[in-house]
């Protein structure tokens, strides 16, 4: 039975509970994980950890053609490389510490750049809890330093738990004789009790599966742009500090832009509606961007890529003996992709260990999380649409700047706008949580006041400064 019919079963679930129990893994069962990015490795890690607690002996094979020790695109999974504050905490709680060699820079603030001024938003704890990382082993032609790939580190953790890495490219997955067969480019094939698709959206596997299936739809995608600038560690420390620099500019189709300092390099990420050369030129031509670099000169980038990201989940995300996790399934819109990989990977692992590998088990125990992420993304889409309106409305940008800068001067009062912006930039909270906070009467009242005060003739914000410019972090 081909993949198509297997996925079709997800819509025909009517299997009784006692039949589902026959689909539980036994000692000696085997799992194939396709892809060694964070979703695949974290699935393997958590599955093997939980399987050990229930004395379940199952083999896990991780299929990954790349070696994460390589520099440049060959060893990289093409991503901005930010582990959010909430994910850093959750990983630490799980016993997964990000070592110094993996963390390229600890981030403790965001600096928001707009045409009306800049403002630094610091975390109240004054503690570095956002990790800037390299997914591979650094940019192309970077020096051989003591850097360590984030993906490589997670893969080592999975291997320490007993996962086996198979450096082969998977080209097809088919259901044969009630098991799943994984086919590779070198004609190798093997049978498994479960296939976990964690290949991401920048490989061809999902496209192949969609072409074979009447019912499977791969994720909807959009093109992004990522590049690296070499400035040197000291220049980056002086110019960017421990701050991620984000931009709210009136450039159509640009949803989010950030400069992320890491070691000797700064990573630029542009997210939006099919990033292209025209949008990039407008972005690089903005004085707000140029002024971030030494001498207001943007150097040539040394490494770049146009990865695609998931903006709508695949459908369905599971079948009998099959589950899609991470970007291959359901992920957060624009932000915290690694966090979504962790959540979906762990939910899938729990389902497999404690329930089963049939479509019914995934429907009951895995799909609710995917729906929660998708529903939150709908709110996220609305939030980004509002942000697009702010991008076009100078008076709104002045009000936000004033409100945020004044909050940063105060230690006692709640920093409402700062918190909203922080969680929006960092991806540390759900979009629903962020949106609900903007409905608080005090937030609305304060915003309205700052919109008025910030746009009065002669006001500091209208002239590009806030009330206490010498104390604030506002620069213009």
């Amino acid at each position, binding site marked *: 039975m081909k993949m198509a019919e297997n996925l079709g079963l997800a819509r025909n679930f009517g299997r009784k509970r006692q039949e589902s129990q026959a689909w539980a893994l036994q000692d000696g069962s085997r799992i194939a994980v396709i892809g060694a990015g964070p979703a695949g490795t974290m699935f393997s890690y958590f599955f093997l950890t939980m399987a050990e607690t229930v004395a379940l002996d199952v083999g896990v094979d991780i299929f990954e053609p790349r070696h994460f020790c390589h520099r440049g695109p060959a060893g990289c999974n093409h991503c901005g490389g930010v582990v959010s504050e909430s994910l850093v905490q959750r990983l630490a709680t799980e016993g997964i510490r*990000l070592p110094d060699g993996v963390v390229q820079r*600890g981030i403790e603030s965001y600096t928001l750049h707009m045409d009306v001024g800049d403002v630094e938003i610091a975390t109240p704890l004054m503690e570095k809890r956002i990790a800037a990382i390299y997914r591979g082993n650094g940019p192309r032609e970077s020096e051989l330093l003591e850097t360590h790939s984030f993906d490589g580190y997670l893969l080592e953790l999975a291997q320490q738990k007993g996962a086996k890495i198979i450096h082969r490219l998977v080209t097809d997955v088919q259901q044969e004789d009630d098991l799943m067969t994984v086919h590779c480019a070198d004609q190798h094939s093997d049978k498994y009790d479960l296939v976990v698709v964690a290949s991401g959206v920048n490989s061809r596997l999902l496209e192949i599966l969609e072409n074979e299936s009447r019912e499977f739809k791969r994720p909807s995608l959009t093109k992004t742009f990522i590049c690296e600038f070499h400035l040197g560690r000291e220049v980056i420390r002086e110019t960017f500090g421990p701050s991620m620099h984000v931009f709210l500019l009136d450039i159509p189709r640009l949803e989010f832009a950030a400069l992320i300092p890491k070691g000797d390099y700064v990573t630029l990420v542009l997210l939006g509606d099919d990033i292209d050369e025209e949008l990039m030129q407008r972005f690089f031509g903005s004085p707000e961007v140029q002024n971030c670099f030494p001498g207001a000169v943007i150097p040539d980038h040394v490494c770049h890529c146009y990865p695609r990201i998931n903006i709508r989940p695949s459908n369905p995300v599971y079948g009998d003996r099959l589950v899609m996790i991470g970007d291959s399934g359901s992920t957060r819109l624009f932000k915290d992709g690694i966090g979504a990989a962790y959540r979906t990977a762990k939910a899938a692992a*729990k389902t497999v260990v404690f329930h089963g590998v049939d479509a019914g088990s995934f429907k009951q125990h895995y799909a609710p999380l995917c729906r929660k992420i998708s529903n939150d993304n709908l709110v996220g889409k609305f939030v980004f649409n509002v942000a697009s309106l702010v991008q076009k409305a100078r008076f709104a940008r002045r009000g936000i700047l004033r409100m945020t800068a004044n909050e940063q001067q105060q230690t006692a009062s709640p920093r409402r706008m700062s918190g909203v912006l922080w969680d929006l930039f960092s991806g540390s909270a759900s979009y629903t949580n962020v949106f609900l906070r903007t409905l608080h009467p005090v937030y609305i009242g304060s915003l309205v006041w700052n919109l008025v005060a910030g746009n009065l003739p002669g006001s500091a914000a209208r002239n590009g400064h806030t009330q206490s410019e010498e104390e604030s972090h506002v620069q213009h």
Partner: protein
Amino acid sequence: MASLGKEYKEGEVIVRQGEMGNCMFVIQKGEVEAVAEADGKELRLRTMGRDEFFGEMALFEKATRTATIRAIRPTRVLTIDKKNFLGGIHEDPSLAFRIVQTMSHRIRDLTDRLAKSEESN
């Protein structure tokens, strides 16, 4: 290389007995000691090193810290917010497994020490 968390010098207090707490800490580097004060005397309860955590009771109870935690070497710790932790537990209760497991070990250790103390008395 870069790092996460907050640095503490040798001898610096991270949490103080009697303070209200709303977070726990995971040690990224270094070593700390947990001391309890009673009748003007300090009793060292345990030492903890890299990857171990402390202050977890504040995540489950609205009570004061039961011990003072002090760095005995240059130490770096990562703060885990109560809000973030409880939000994570709500979505994924298994997030608490490692904490529960460690607390179980500590209860076992304290029980053994108490039994030995009773025996020697």
